[in-house]
């Protein structure tokens, strides 16, 4: 089992890291040698081979340095700058900008020279960051290790899928069929498929057993209802929902949105009217669907999981990657409802109150009057906007889909977009709820 170095002193920590880090860099060097071999033998590219060889040598050098007790460390000013620059706002907007750049620049970015270099840079940063005790502690928590793996897997498969899509799109533009069309021959399942399955099972078993030998399953103190850990985190795959609690009422974040996510996912095949792009990788032939899914899956779902796992600490405060998890850090939370903005700030009058003795209809009337701004806005967003879009920007889509499917699609889409919108409104204007009816525990 890995004995993680003690964090007591920073020097002691770095010294204890020498061995593991050295092997890590040597592993990355070996990876680059593999890439060099692949570039020479399969891709027949001298340029790539030379670049990977140089990078491999650089990593081997870093490995030697680390083993001799002088690992590459990030300068303090860089770590401080990183911590200061990163917050929920920059992290989220940065990730979304990254997605847009990836979409626009995909033809360049999937080229091996670019993507493999990006991988090398990320592995280098990872190695250098591991010398920071706070970073290392967060990343090496047993339950967080798989998430680090997931990040790399997602990056790899996003690359793999997009690279094939880019290649197919070029072929399709030239009037050729997608690459997949060249593999329609049939083979017998015995032995071809059965052996692939066997090999897959063996590889998976080896990975699992090695992983299990290296990292023990966590077991903390016995359950104690009297002692609440700070922070209390849900299992990692639900951290996106926990993160949404910051921006939505629990009923919306914990029940309504999850239900809509599940229903929305199930509805995808029935809401996508595009017959093209069935059974092969492509972006150009289904730009809208591709963009929506990647935005929702990578840009919201995965991103929120990563924030919840790696960036949230005590009091659910946001911490930079190299920031000590100070239990006293509390983000000042000022939350203002839209009705308060509307009546008090913009109109300069008091927010209408519901007299306690008022009953039934009168009460409802006052509530609706108080929330008039939020209700109007909600109505505009969910009713007027889709109707306008159906006649303008999305006209062709509306015609292709028919009324019911169009409305279902657009409502689900707007629900999804509500999340980033509310995040931004919350950060910039401290807006908490658009419509808030505490009398019936209803908040939107």
């Amino acid at each position, binding site marked *: 089992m890995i004995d993680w170095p003690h964090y007591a002193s920073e020097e002691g920590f770095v010294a204890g890291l020498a061995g593991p880090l050295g092997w890590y860099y040597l592993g990355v060097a070996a990876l680059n040698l593999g890439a060099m071999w692949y570039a020479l033998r399969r891709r027949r590219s001298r340029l790539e081979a030379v670049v990977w060889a140089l990078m491999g040598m650089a990593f081997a050098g870093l490995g030697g340095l680390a083993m001799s007790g002088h690992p590459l460390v990030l300068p303090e000013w860089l770590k401080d700058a990183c911590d200061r620059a990163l917050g929920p706002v920059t992290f989220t907007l940065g990730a979304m900008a990254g997605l847009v750049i990836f979409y626009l620049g995909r033809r360049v970015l999937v080229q091996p020279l670019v993507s493999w270099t990006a991988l090398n840079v990320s592995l280098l940063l990872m190695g250098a960051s591991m010398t920071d005790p706070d970073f290392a502690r967060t990343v090496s928590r047993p339950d967080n290790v798989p998430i680090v793996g997931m990040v790399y897997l997602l990056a790899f498969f996003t690359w793999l899928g997009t690279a094939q899509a880019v290649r197919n799109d070029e072929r399709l533009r030239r009037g050729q069929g997608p690459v997949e069309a060249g593999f329609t021959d049939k083979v017998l399942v015995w032995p071809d498929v059965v052996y692939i399955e066997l090999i897959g099972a063996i590889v998976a078993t080896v990975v699992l057993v090695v992983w299990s030998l290296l990292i023990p399953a966590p077991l903390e103190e016995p359950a104690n209802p009297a002692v609440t850990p700070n922070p209390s985190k849900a299992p990692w795959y639900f951290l996106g929902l926990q993160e949404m609690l910051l921006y939505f009422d629990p009923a919306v974040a914990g029940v309504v949105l999850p239900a809509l996510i599940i229903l929305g996912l*199930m509805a995808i095949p029935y809401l996508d009217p595009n017959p093209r792009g069935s*059974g092969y990788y492509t972006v150009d032939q289904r730009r809208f669907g591709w963009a929506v899914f990647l935005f929702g899956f990578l840009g919201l779902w995965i991103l929120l999981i990563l924030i919840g796992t790696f960036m949230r600490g005590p009091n659910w405060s946001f911490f930079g990657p190299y920031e000590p998890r100070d239990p006293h850090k509390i983000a000042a939370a000022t939350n203002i409802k839209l009705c308060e903005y509307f009546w008090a700030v913009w109109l300069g009058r008091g927010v209408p109150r519901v007299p306690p003795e008022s009953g039934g209809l009168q009460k409802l009337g006052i509530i609706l009057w108080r929330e008039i701004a939020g209700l109007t806005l909600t109505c505009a967003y969910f009713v007027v906007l889709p109707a306008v879009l159906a006649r303008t920007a999305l006209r062709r889509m509306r015609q292709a889909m028919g009324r019911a499917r169009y409305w279902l699609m657009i409502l689900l889409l707007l629900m999804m977009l509500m999340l980033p919108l509310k995040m931004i409104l919350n950060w910039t204007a401290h807006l908490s709820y658009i419509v808030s009816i505490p009398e019936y525990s209803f908040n939107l």
Partner: protein
Amino acid sequence: MSLGKKLRNSQLWRSIFRHPAPLDRRNRVAVMLTNFVLHLHSVSAKKNSLRFSYTWGMGLITLYLFLVEVITGVLLMFYYRPTIECAYNDILALRDVVSFGVVREVHRWAAHAMVITVMLHMFRVFLTGSYKAPREFNWVIGVLLLVLTFLLSFTGYLLPMDQLSMWAITVGSNMARATPLVGHEGPGHQLLTLGGVDMITSRSDARLMLLGARTVGQEALNRFYVLHCVALPLVATFLVGLHLWRVRKDGGISGPVAVGDGRQTGAVGGEAS
């Protein structure tokens, strides 16, 4: 006659496998048709469905991880008793006393891995547009499997009964308090009254149904244990079976479909080389 050949022609061999060894074409077809486990497959498959870069192998690995979970889960059940007094100590003993003590590790890490691979599988199916006709409904079954995978993982998280599990489940189940109408802090719960008495209170709401009590304790442990070890695996097994059956009935793993005049997709299928 070599020993292997003798063995494969023996009465015992034939009685078990029902046909000679799959060394020629005829018997390679026969083995797929007559073997109970293998007959989940079709007899032949398009080359495209064997390419790692097409399927990423993620559905297959998810399936395999599910089997690993079933096997290691049964082993864990030999040692684990779902009571407040025993649960934590049984897990401790699993680490300190039981020999070959990595079963818990394998079970936990395979569970994490399964959540990851099932999401990657969904990602792949989306990117290849494999949810399009005629596979729409198999995608729906897939989404149910995704939810089941989350629920299996979530219910298992409580069983060690340490601080991590108890508070993770507390955070997770607290959301049920806010269920519309039937959570005692949910929107509109005030509307459900009977003769002026609230029907939905902390003693009668959705959260209580989940936990069996107002806090995470013995009742919750019992419910989660039964869900985790019996109810959810049964449902998942059924749905996986349905899912795989549909993969076959929908024409095997997807491949390029030409649209209309074939102009948009180029000469799909016409390029077989």
